[in-house]
Structure formats: structure tokens, C-alpha cells
């Protein structure tokens, strides 16, 4: 039963990922006084792309087609690490957050290579910028999670969630506040949202992710878009699981499962609203300010780790 629920929550994470994007887009439009597209629009986009043919540049090697598939595969595998509806996960009980972080890095490595295989300057430009952002985001991401892991005395995400479930909300310490701030910064950078990157722009001088995937089309592009949608909902699920897991099912009954699902969707809605408000109220940073942005995240993460030792 637990194992079935583990599979279900991983599939849920993969399938509702485009919906989260749609909801954020819709709410952003509302805040900006536009009507906005339907929340189901990302699904229609994916379907359309999957039906089209793949355009491959003459200069490209086999890696060009392989990269999106690898990215998608490792992102889906990473989705198996995060507890969503209960305090365990398909791979996240034995596997730990270090493996999760590095799986995402593997996918990004291949996407960067795929971008450089196109042979145009846009691919290289996006790849170079992505390399900058992801390199600087890795340390605060790992340190932020490490701070919580040290408190929980376990590195597996399921273990961290179970430990947090046993705590009262008001027992959570400054470590949690600092680590949450650090990870929220990193999540914005990793998923390419404003103020680090603008997912809606198509101006080559400002874009990071979009420049990187400029040469992709058809099913390959669909896989990349889907994978980045999964990454967004994965980061959201990670923040929810580590910092606010309350409401997750502790027994495998229908009622507690319904409560867990409702609680998760409610928390996801809060994340979506926060992203929509943030993206409507802040401007994108100049690229060379992004290291400062991530520097703040690193400082917060370092403080979080130092506090784990000081506050016991």
C-alpha cells in the first residue's frame, strides 16, 4: 500500500507539473490585469509539440537528440525522491538529498551540451549563463538541505519529513527560517523564474534557459519544457516536504489520503500565488547581479549550518 502510494505520488508530481505552470501564468495575468490563457494551456502546448517533427541542425551529433531524453529521464527519476502525500518516497527512503541534487545536475549537464551542439551562438550563450547560475546555486542548495538534515539526524528526504512531522510548527528554529530563505532563493534560480531568468522572454540578450533551448523543436522541445515544469513542481514539493509537511498521510486510509491530497494542493496554491505575486512585482536582475543574489542565498545557508551547531 505504501509502495503503491509512493508510485502514485511520483506520477502525480510528473503529471500535475504543467498545471502548476498554467496556474502561475493565469494568476500572473490576473494580477497584471490581463485575462490570461487557460490553466490547461501547457498541456495543449505539450500535445502540439509532441505531434510535430523534430528539426535537427546539420552540424549536430547524436547527442543533440539524446540530451532532452536524458534531461527528462533524470528529472522524472528525481521526482521519485520527494515525499508528497506521505512521509516516504519511491527512491527517497534509501536515497538522499545529495543524490537528488546531483541527478538534477546530470540533466542540466546534458542540456548544456545539447545547447552547444546546435552550433549557433545562442546555444553557447545560454549554456554559458546556465553554467554560471547553476554552479553558484549548487552550494547553497546543498548547504540549506544539509542544515535541516543535521537537525533531523538523517540525510534521506523521507527521514527528514518524518522528523519534521513529529515537531510542532512553533518548535521550528532559526535554522529552519534561514534554510528556508536560502532554498527559496535557490529554487527561484534553479527553475529560471524572475528575478533570475524570465521564462516568458524571447529576447536573446536577456534570456538564459530560452536561449539554451532555442534550437530545439517538436518532441525534443516538449520533453525539455515538461522536464522544466517537473523541476518547478519538484522544487515546490521539496520546500513543502522539508519545511511544511503537516497534513501528510501517516496511515494508509482513504480519509487520510484525501486530507493529504487536499493539504498538498492547498500548499501548492500558496506557492503558485507567491510566485505570481513575486513575478509581477519585481524586475529581472541584470545577469551579473545574479551572483550577488546567490551570494545572499549562500550566506543564509552558511548561517543555517552554523546555527545547527550553535543552537543545540
Amino acid at each position, binding site marked *: 500500500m505504501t509502495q503503491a502510494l509512493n508510485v502514485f505520488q511520483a506520477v502525480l508530481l510528473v503529471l500535475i507539473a504543467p498545471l502548476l505552470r498554467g496556474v502561475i501564468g493565469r494568476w500572473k495575468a490576473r494580477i497584471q490585469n490581463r485575462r490570461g490563457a487557460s490553466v490547461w494551456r501547457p498541456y495543449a502546448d505539450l500535445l502540439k509539440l509532441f505531434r510535430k517533427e523534430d528539426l*535537427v541542425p546539420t552540424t549536430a551529433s547524436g547527442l543533440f537528440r539524446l540530451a532532452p531524453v536524458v534531461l527528462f529521464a533524470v528529472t522524472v527519476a528525481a521526482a521519485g525522491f520527494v515525499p508528497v502525500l506521505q512521509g516516504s518516497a519511491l527512491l527517497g527512503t534509501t536515497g538522499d538529498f545529495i*543524490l537528488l541534487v546531483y541527478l538534477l545536475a546530470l540533466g542540466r549537464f546534458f542540456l548544456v551540451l545539447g545547447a552547444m551542439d546546435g*552550433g549557433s551562438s545562442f546555444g553557447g550563450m545560454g549554456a554559458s549563463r546556465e553554467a554560471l547560475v547553476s554552479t553558484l546555486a549548487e552550494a547553497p542548495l546543498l548547504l540549506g538541505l*544539509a542544515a535541516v538534515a543535521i537537525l533531523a539526524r538523517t540525510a534521506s528526504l523521507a527521514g527528514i519529513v518524518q522528523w519534521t512531522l513529529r515537531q510542532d510548527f512553533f518548535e521550528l528554529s532559526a535554522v529552519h527560517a534561514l534554510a528556508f530563505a536560502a532554498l527559496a532563493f535557490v529554487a527561484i534560480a534553479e527553475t529560471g523564474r524572475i528575478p533570475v531568468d524570465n521564462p516568458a522572454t524571447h529576447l536573446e540578450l536577456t534570456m538564459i534557459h530560452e536561449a539554451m533551448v532555442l534550437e530545439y523543436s517538436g518532441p525534443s522541445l516538449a520533453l525539455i519544457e515538461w522536464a522544466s515544469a517537473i523541476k518547478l513542481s519538484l522544487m515546490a514539493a521539496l520546500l513543502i516536504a522539508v519545511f511544511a509537511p503537516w497534513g501528510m498521510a501517516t496511515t494508509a486510509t482513504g480519509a487520510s489520503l484525501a486530507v493529504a491530497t487536499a493539504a498538498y494542493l492547498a500548499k501548492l496554491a500558496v506557492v503558485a500565488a507567491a510566485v505570481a505575486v513575486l513575478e509581477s512585482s519585481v524586475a529581472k536582475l541584470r545577469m551579473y547581479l545574479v551572483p550577488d543574489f546567490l551570494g545572499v542565498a549562500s550566506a543564509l545557508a552558511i548561517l543555517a549550518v552554523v546555527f545547527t551547531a550553535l543552537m543545540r
Partner: protein
Amino acid sequence: MTLFSAGLILIEGDAGQRRHNVFIYLLMMHAGTAAVIATFFLFLPHAPGLDFAAMRTAAISMPPGLRAAIFLLAFVGFGTKAGIVPLHLWLPKAHPIAPSPVSALMSGVMLKTAVYGFVRIAFDFLGSGPAWWGYLVLAAGAVSGVLGVLYAIGEHDLKRLLAYHSVENIGIIYLGLGASLVFASQGASSWAALALVAALLHTINHALFKSALFLGAGAISDGAHTLDIEELGGLLKRMPVTGTAFLIACCAISGLPLFNGFISEWLTFRSFLAGGTLADLPAAIVLPLMAGTLALIGGLAAACFAKVYGVAFLGRARSEEAEHAREVAPAMQASMVVLATACVAIGILPGFLLRPLGAAVQEFVKGAVLPVETFSIARIMPWVALAVVAIIVLGRVIRGATRVTRTWACGMPALDSRMQYTSTAFSKPLRKVFARVYQPERHVEVVSDTSGYFPAAISYQSVRTTSFERSLYRPAVDAIVAAAHRLRRLQTGNIQIYLLYIFLALVTLLVFMRFL
């Protein structure tokens, strides 16, 4: 070993710059050897002989000051041979000029013997020591790791870049060794064993993937006749076997999962995390923070190898030679394929190496049993690999129609290879962020025409010396040369003065002998 390798470096000729580099190599190696031999001599008054058992028993009864002196000498001596910053100066000079198989041997085996020697003395003979030993090794590891990879990012000569990555990987190994020493000083023996296993496994892993990379560099120079990655491009299509093996080695050295580099970095991470549980406050703060350093090193290494692979093997060929590159001989391919296969095998099934290593470290950390969590990586990796491969296969099976077409050129007629991002351009953002480390000397000369608005000619020159050469070695060399100049006054060339020296020496000696 030093002399043999110096001979091997000179196989491909001994023109001026080469001879200079080999001279630096020999000099630093011998300085390292002197320190190592001094280490052994310090054992002599306390040990009946210089066999391992005698030295082990001698170390127990030594005064702490002598133990510290032995440790420091071993640290400097073997550190020079392993190439830790700032004693790494010879590494990026000697490796690029050696033939590729020799570089592979030097990086894969020779650096490792230095690590072995250090582990033998610090862990086995001395049986580890106070916490500051660990912090010293941790600091050396962190500095070597970060600076090694940053210097590598700035390089576009493939072999010098790989040489700097050896500095980085030695840094990662030293991070593990340092953590182990700190744990041992706190009495946390099973965590000390874990950190030591991490360091030893990384030593093995580095031998595998770095040899594969150096052999790949040899294949590139054989197939495309250059090692400047700015002149390469599109090699994966022309050298598919070399390209695939090189890609696997790139993933492995970047510490990405499913490849062996990740396993040892994961073990290092886990031992750093365990540091958070120590009762000692400095250790509980420093060790977990080192996880951040390791993450930074890993991220930078991934960026650097994305640059190497993307520029050299992907996209368009940037030169005539790269355009007509051909695959190398089957024997060369086979050697790379074997090493790459080993990288994948250890990456997915690490269990078969973890157990023997766990048994091996018991010799160094007495009675230590590896923590059970260590083997969770061996349980989870096959499943992760299975999941990833299954989805990749599924994705490849349901692929749709494909059409080969020109790269989009914003409506312009066509793109050529000069419009691609170069290695220098790729690394620019990172070099800008870490500008303090590089401090390049730039000379820009603009010759303007009569109007003063449109330059007639611009010349740009950028010289990159590592700041250690400028701020540490250069003053030392200058001081020695200045001292030598001053001492030259003794050498007058006048025979009477020399006779006076002999007479004075004789009198001093007699007086000395009389009153002793």
C-alpha cells in the same frame, strides 16, 4: 620514479621552454623527496630500524612535538609530490609537455603514490593526531580544490586544463583525508573510516577517469593535430568512440551520478554531514561547511567539462584539422573504452569496491566498522540507473519524425564556425565572477584614425600567470638571487684571500675542538 618520468617527459624533444619546465619539475620533486627523507630520519633515534612495524611502535612513545614535526614534513613532502596548492606549480608545467600516455601515468599513478605515502605516515605510523592536523589538511584540500578548478576554467589548452583538474581532485582527496583526521581526533572512529574510504575511493576513481581523459587528449592530438580546444569542434561525429569514452569520463570527473566520481564525492559529503553530530563545536561547524566547498568544486568542475566537451566535441569544426579529424587506432580506442566502462561500472555498482575498501581501512583506523548508511548508495544506485535507462529507452522508442535542417541564423544566409561560442566566451561569466583569483594582465592598444572615432587597429593581449607565481614564488626566487649576489663578494678571485679563508676555517675548527 622522478628521473624516469623526467626522461619520459623529454621523449618529444627538449626545446628551451620544455627543458625549463622539466627543471622546475625535477627541482620541486627533489625538494619534496628531501622533506620525505627527513621524515624518515626523524624516526631513527626512536626506532631500531626503518621497517613499518618498528616505525609504528616508535611513534607511540615519541614526544608530541616530534610527532607534529614528522607530520608537517610528511605533509609538505608528499604534498609537493601530490600537487596541493601552493606546491602545485610543477603540475601544470610538467603534464602538458609529456606525451599523453605519460601524462595519464603521472596523473593516474604518480600523484596517487604521494597520497599513499601521506596516508601511510599520518594514519598508519603516527596513528593520527590532534585536530589541527585535520584542519590543516582540510584547508589544503579546500584551497587546492577551488583554485585548481578555477584555474582549469581559464585554460583552453586541453592538457594544461586536465593538469589543473588533477590539483582539484587531489584537493577533494585531501578533503576526505582531513575529515578523517578530524573524526579520528574526536574519537569518532567509524566516521573516520567512512571519510578515509571516501578519500581512497576517490583516489581510485581519479586514476580511472583522469587516465581516460589524458588518453582522450592523446587521441585528439593524434586525430586532429592540436590540443587547443579553440581550434577543435564537432569531433564527436568524426571520432565517435573517443567522443563517447571522453563524455563518460567528463561526467565522472564532474561528480555526476551513474558515474564513479559521484560515489566518492557522495561518501565525502556524507562524512561532512556526520560532522554535524560531533560534540566538539569547531568540528561541528567546519565539517558541514566543507560540504558547501565540495558542492562549489563539483559545480565548477561540471561547468568546466561542459565547456571542454561542448567546444571540442560538439557543434561545428573550428579549424581545417578538426574538420578532417579521423578516429584513432583500435588499440587506442580500446584502452579508453576499458577505462570508461570501469567508470560506469563503479558508478552503478559501487558495492563491490566499498566492501574491500571498508576492510582495508581497518588497518589504519583500529576496530572501525563502516556506518551502515554507507551501503545505502550501493543499494539505491542500480535502481536509479534502471529508472533513468528505462525512461531513456522509452523516450528513444517513441521518437517521432526527424528532419535535418540548417541551424537558425536569424534569417541571415548561413552561420559559420566563427559565430559559435568559444571556450573563452563560455567561461567569461565565471571568470568575471571570480576575477580576484585570476587577476590577468591585459594590454589593449587602440590605434585611432584621424577622426578619433573609429579605431584603425586594436591589439589585445592578455597574460595569465597564476597569482602564486607572482606573489609567492617570484619573491622567493628574487630573494635567493639577491642573497647569492651578496655572497658573491666572498669570491674575489684573489688566491691570498682564499688562503686566508682556509686558515681562518682551520683556526676556528681547532678552537672549537679544544673547548668542546
